[in-house]
């Protein structure tokens, strides 16, 4: 038992909680104190925050040591890790649990806080008060301390021992019991995206605190507009990182989950999408204020809203309130109350502070002209907020139900049955509006335009838009009116911003961030429209076998049943299932399951023969290599005109302790379209297959016969002296037949054995050819006629059921994401420079 590391970790958690409160208090004092006292308070505050940072680092290190060294006496290591987990996924274990993800969030905020202390002289004290308070709330979530007397548990510690977390009888008999292995990491998270997606997302979460803290500090210190300049670059950085995190999540879903897309409008996704939209809106209002001294109040409200929404989404996803509404299984750690207090505290403080100061906030009475950029940006920001509102409203349905229940009522409201259709129909039209507004707004941003020059300025871009649109339409053949409008808006957004980009780069390339970011958004809009709007299921079943006659005729099915080595046609391809494969851990490639022998260790197998992959030898015969026994890959070959164009390996993971069966797709990527394939149902290998009744035939050496419609020939019968490593005695006689069976693709050998023990007992060892679904038994030998009796059994051949979808132009979405990120980077470099010049 390693008690020390856990106690140390717990101590660090408590220390980080206490120091964050002390630091907040000292900074509060420093913000109010007279000049001579201020320095002393500041020094105190800084030291406490440095201590806080070190304590947080200590917690992180302690938890990682526990996971890395497989200390399964700790609940966190036991329930999130296992001995066979590859090294890089140890990192994913760290944030798989709620406690670890809170820790990650605390860690990022501590780091940002330290950075702010170094760079923000003027704002340090008031901003760090907010930081200290937020850190205290977050640290309390992993505190794991019971308040004496009240019997209230504060937080859930990642350092609790297994025996305290689980009520297993073994601990009564043997308090020092340590499991030999952990229950492992959720297989869905064993993916490289899951190593980088959560830290990116939580960095984005952490970054939203900075503009909020500046906004609060500005209101508190009556510096009503000075906070915008230091806050803006951080808001941009937050927008970029949070956006990147969200898109990484989408990309992970596309690659790993099998719902056939990158965005499912699940409450968990919505909970981060809404704050991001509002964050983007707040960035735009901050830019309006910097340029034109208007919309300050809007900027303040939106900055508060972003942070409150982040807290709300934390509450939604971690309190267990989404229970019946989401496919994700959330675990309620009993933190709901604490999370609610956290949410209400900052919402209350922010609203009260803003209300108290409201009258003092300078406003501008002048109306923005229709020909000003402010007008257009403001409309765009408003649209973004409406987009957020539209998603937030239905996502909160479980909250309404709970509220009504608390008030004594009853509510049976459920989220929309067709989530994707419901949200998409609204969001796409909002997207069109955003595209039109930001396309037009960019002209006004770049040049002063009035009534007279408007036509002249817009004529060329509109003309080019129409030409590009016409070409695109004739190439892609879109006819749906809604999709036509979306494409047109997307093209307009891109064209107008390309024009601005060209003009801007001539003057000053560092100003091009906005134009680039908007081009990226336009590309994403078009990519989303095509890949989702024109996503088609190509694996349609046309066999006409129905389950029941009661069913209506539109009960058509989207899956395809493939028998091994039997080609079918699908989406212009000839598609053929080639069998089950395993993936060696240390060599790139896949190995046929027929070519390996199992060992006692399920993670180690031996190659039966030299293993070739794509014509190259990757393993030698008799090599022992490591695999992950949970994973099976189904080799699917796609051919066009008899030439192999792609081999796909969709994966199935069977992990009983994690809830069973997980299918991940494999994607054939083309420039213009992806072919997305996943297994819907694999054969159950645990079940004994149903064999046909034994058919007996008499045959001679080199005489052909048929088994399951395959040509077979008995090549010879030889006497053997051992069977599977067991030496036979002198009184035993054993012969082995060698039967060649010619399959569609390969030649197989069945080698059944006929055995006479002690001259009396007859034994027969049949031989199976897995791929062909046949079993051959050597039943009898007739020396008088040189004939042999063979027993033939057949079964249904190996099969797999797949679903395949075509996703056109999805690469434009990913490319647009990249362009958006480049745009963000250029913009935020410019704003950070602007800030450091001003300081």
């Amino acid at each position, binding site marked *: 038992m390693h008690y020390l590391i856990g106690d140390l970790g717990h101590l660090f958690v408590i220390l980080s909680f206490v120091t964050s409160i002390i630091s907040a208090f000292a900074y509060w004092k420093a913000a109010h104190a007279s000049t001579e006292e201020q320095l002393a308070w500041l020094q105190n505050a800084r030291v406490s925050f440095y201590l806080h940072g070190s304590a947080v680092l200590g917690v992180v290190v302690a938890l990682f040591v526990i996971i890395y060294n497989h200390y399964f006496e700790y609940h966190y290591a036991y329930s999130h890790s296992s001995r066979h987990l590859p090294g890089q996924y140890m990192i994913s274990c760290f944030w798989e649990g709620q406690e670890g993800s809170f820790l990650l969030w605390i860690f990022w905020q501590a780091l940002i806080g330290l950075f702010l202390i170094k760079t923000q002289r003027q704002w340090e004290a008031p901003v760090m008060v907010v930081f200290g308070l937020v850190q205290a709330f977050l640290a309390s979530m992993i505190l794991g301390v019971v308040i004496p007397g009240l019997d209230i548990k504060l937080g859930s510690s990642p350092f609790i021992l297994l025996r305290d977390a689980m009520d297993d009888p073994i601990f009564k008999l043997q308090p020092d019991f340590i499991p*030999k292995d952990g229950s492992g990491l959720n297989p869905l998270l064993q993916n490289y995206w899951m190593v980088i997606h959560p830290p990116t997302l939580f960095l984005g979460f952490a970054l939203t605190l900075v503009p909020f803290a500046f906004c609060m500090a500005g209101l508190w210190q009556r510096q009503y507009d000075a906070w915008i300049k230091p806050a803006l670059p951080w808001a941009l950085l937050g927008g970029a990182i949070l956006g990147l995190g969200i898109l990484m999540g989408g990309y992970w879903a596309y690659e790993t989950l099998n719902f056939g897309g990158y965005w499912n409008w699940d409450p968990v996704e919505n909970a981060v999408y809404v704050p991001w939209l509002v964050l983007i809106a707040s960035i735009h209002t901050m830019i309006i204020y910097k340029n034109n001294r208007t919309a300050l109040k809007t900027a303040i409200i939106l900055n508060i809203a972003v942070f409150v929404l982040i807290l709300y989404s934390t509450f939604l996803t971690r309190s267990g309130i989404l229970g019946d509404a989401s496919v994700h299984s959330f675990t309620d750690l009993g933190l709901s109350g604490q999370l609610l207090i956290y949410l209400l505290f900052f919402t209350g403080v922010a609203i009260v502070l803003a209300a108290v100061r409201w009258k003092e906030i300078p406003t501008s009475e002048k109306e923005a002209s229709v020909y000003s950029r402010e007008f257009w940006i403001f409309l765009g920001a408003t649209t973004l907020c409406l987009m957020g509102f539209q998603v937030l409203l239905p996502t909160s349905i479980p909250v309404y139900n709970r509220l009504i229940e608390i008030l004594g009522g009853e509510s049976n409201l*459920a989220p929309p049955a067709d989530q994707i259709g419901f949200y998409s129909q609204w969001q796409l039209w909002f997207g069109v509006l955003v595209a039109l507004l930001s396309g037009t707004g960019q002209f006004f941003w770049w040049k002063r335009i009035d009534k007279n020059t408007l036509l002249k300025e817009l004529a060329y871009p509109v003309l080019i838009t129409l030409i590009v649109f016409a070409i695109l339409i004739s190439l892609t053949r879109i006819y749906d009116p809604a999709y036509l409008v979306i494409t047109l808006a997307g093209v307009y957004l891109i064209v107008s911003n390309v024009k601005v980009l060209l003009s801007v780069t001539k003057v000053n390339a560092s100003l091009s961030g906005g134009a680039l970011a908007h081009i990226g958004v336009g590309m994403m809009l078009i990519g989303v429209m095509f890949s989702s709007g024109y996503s088609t299921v190509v694996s349609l079943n046309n066999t006409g076998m129905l389950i029941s006659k009661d069913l209506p005729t539109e009960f058509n*099915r989207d899956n395809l049943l493939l028998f091994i080595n039997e080609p079918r046609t699908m989406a212009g391809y000839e598609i053929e299932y080639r069998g089950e494969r395993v993936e060696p851990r240390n060599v790139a490639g896949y190995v046929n399951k027929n070519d390996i022998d199992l060992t006692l260790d399920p993670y180690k197998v031996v190659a039966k023969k030299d293993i070739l992959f794509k014509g190259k030898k990757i393993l030698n015969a008799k090599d022992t290599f490591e695999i992950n026994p949970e994973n099976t890959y189904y080799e699917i070959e796609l051919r066009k005109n008899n030439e192999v164009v792609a081999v796909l390996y969709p994966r199935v993971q069977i992990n009983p302790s994690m809830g*069973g069966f997980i299918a991940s797709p494999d994607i054939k990527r083309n420039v213009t379209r992806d072919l997305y394939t996943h297994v819907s149902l694999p054969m159950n290998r645990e079940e004994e297959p149903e064999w046909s009744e034994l058919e007996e035939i008499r045959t001679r050496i080199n005489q052909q016969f048929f088994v399951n419609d395959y040509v077979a020939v008995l090549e010879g019968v030889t006497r053997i002296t051992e069977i599977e490593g067991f030496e036979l005695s002198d009184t035993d006689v054993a012969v082995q037949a060698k039967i060649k069976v010619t399959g569609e693709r390969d030649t197989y050998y069945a080698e059944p054995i006929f055995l006479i023990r002690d001259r009396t007992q007859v034994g027969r060892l049949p031989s199976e050819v897995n791929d062909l679904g046949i079993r051959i038994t050597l039943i009898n030998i007739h020396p008088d006629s040189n004939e042999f009796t063979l027993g033939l059994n057949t079964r249904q051949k190996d099969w797999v059921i797949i679903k395949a979808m075509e996703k056109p132009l999805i690469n434009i979405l990913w490319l647009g994401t990249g362009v958006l990120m480049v745009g963000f980077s250029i913009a935020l470099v410019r704003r950070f420079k602007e800030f450091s010049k001003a300081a």
Partner: protein
Amino acid sequence: MKKSHIIAIVVIAACIAIIIATAGDASTYVTFDQAYEMASVGNKTHIHVVGDLKKDDAGNIVGIEKSADNLSFSFILIDENKKEQKVFYNEPMPPDFTRSEKVVVIGSYQNNSFIASKILLKCPSKYQEEKIKTTSL
């Protein structure tokens, strides 16, 4: 009228439209009887029904029928009012289907049969496990 007022009115109108649409498109958790009633008056909206799979006395799940080609299946779900209903689903049976404690079906009645367009499985989560694998010792 000032432009800002017009914008405010448009925004409020949009919010009201969103609220109405959400209320209209929101589904409901109902029982099979209610779902049947809805369908018989021509209401084709998809609803949520929460239920358990039918089990025999020994606790084995009964009533699952797969199509000959495994591409679709049907099962018997018992809702909160203990009403049994055969539910058709046009996807292969998920391998962890029989392990699920609760099933949420989203769909509607068509010609007296309940057709699910989506099923959500509530599998026993690993977090609820109270037993530790001691066999690996």
